[in-house]
């Protein structure tokens, strides 16, 4: 009886581990989707309202979910801090929020490239850069979703299979 209970626990533990791994693959597409939505909102703020960058970022932070919201809030705060930073410097100082939230390095790199141009040209040019960034984020999101679908299915089964294998080896 104890053996059966133990075997059940091993399979359940390994299965749960697999499910957690599978779930971790769904975080990146969500993060990318949230960032892409924020980039579109920034484009709208620039196009229609001509809001200043700190004002636009503050407004966006209030309309989206974390961790992207925390990033935009931090960026707005650094920009408005009166320390005489360029947008690129303020962006660099805010990217840590994304890193702490577990964003992938390649996704952070996409956002950091925007620093070189953000706020430094007319609206037409800004919108072009934001459209390019949006396309890249969407491209990354689609790839991340494909990876999620593939890896999530794999981990969903793999955890239980490993658990069963361990039980077989122990018996």
């Amino acid at each position: 009886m104890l053996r059966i209970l133990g075997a059940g626990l091993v399979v359940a533990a390994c299965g749960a581990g697999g499910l957690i791994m599978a779930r971790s693959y769904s975080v990146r597409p969500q993060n990318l989707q949230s960032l892409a939505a924020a980039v579109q909102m920034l484009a709208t703020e620039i196009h229609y309202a001509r809001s200043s960058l700190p004002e636009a970022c503050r407004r966006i932070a209030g309309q989206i979910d974390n961790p992207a919201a925390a990033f935009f809030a931090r960026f707005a705060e650094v920009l408005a801090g009166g320390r005489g930073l360029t947008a690129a410097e303020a962006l660099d100082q805010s990217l840590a929020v994304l890193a702490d939230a577990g964003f992938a390095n390649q996704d952070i790199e996409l956002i950091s490239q925007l620093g070189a141009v953000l706020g430094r040209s007319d609206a037409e040019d800004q919108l072009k850069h934001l459209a390019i960034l949006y396309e890249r984020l969407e491209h990354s999101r689609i790839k991340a979703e494909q990876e999620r679908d593939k890896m999530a299915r794999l981990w969903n089964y793999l955890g239980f299979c490993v658990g069963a294998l361990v039980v077989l080896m122990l018996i």
Partner: protein
Amino acid sequence: MDRLLKCMAPNLRNLFHSVLDWDKVEEIRLRVNQPLVIKEQQKEYGLNAAGRCRPSEGFRVNADDIARTVEIMAENSWYALEDEIRAGYLTLAGGHRVGICGRVVLENGLIKTIKYINGLHIRLAREVPGAADQVMPQIVRSGRIISTLIVSPPGCGKTTLLRDISRQLSNRGFNVVVIDERSEIAACHHGVPQLDVGWSAYVLDGCPKAQGIAMVLRGMAPQVIITDEIGHPNDGLALADAARAGVQVIATCHGSAWDSVRERAWMRHGGAAFQQVILLSRRSGPGTIEQVLKLD
């Protein structure tokens, strides 16, 4: 002056500790690879780590100082100030005006933007309450506002005078509308007047004068329209409309003599909107009233 200094590149901010009397400072001039120059009334000086000095011995501003200062002044949002930049200036919090020089980019013969910025000319905004005390008896007679054109060369205090006229008329309860095409009268920053134009004045900021006059005639029921630097023939047509609508106008235009001003194209229609002309000079300091001419 803290707000102004926060608009400077950090590299430049520390230099200003030796400016003792900000009330006297009229202009700050930044040019790439040239010394930073401060103009106080009739004298100019430079600044370096040791303090005030001759301009030639002063701290030399580099391209990064200028680029960084512009970015901070524009609140990292160049796109939000396209129209102002196209017109060659920015208005800062506090109403200070920054003229911009650099490489002008044209599109279809029109100015699209300015790049490679090489010079910033900061004119400090200063309210002079009471500047209009001397002319107010001419502007308001028997409780009626007299439409007035104020004429002078640049730098003689036209806008300062106009602002104080607005403040005084508005505080007397007249319904004043200020059409501030270049944000110089009320110096709006994010839509909020930074300089006092009176408690009952409306401000239409950044609006071309001719269109602005038509707009306020339709919607604001003004008793007096106040506007700066009339010059385009369309301004004259709009002024004539205002006069036909029974609205008084106080406006300024560049010029050193009435004879040269009366020949201008906008005067053909717009001249009839005015009942008097005030000529200013700097003879005894900015805002010296040289002559008040009654028009028929």
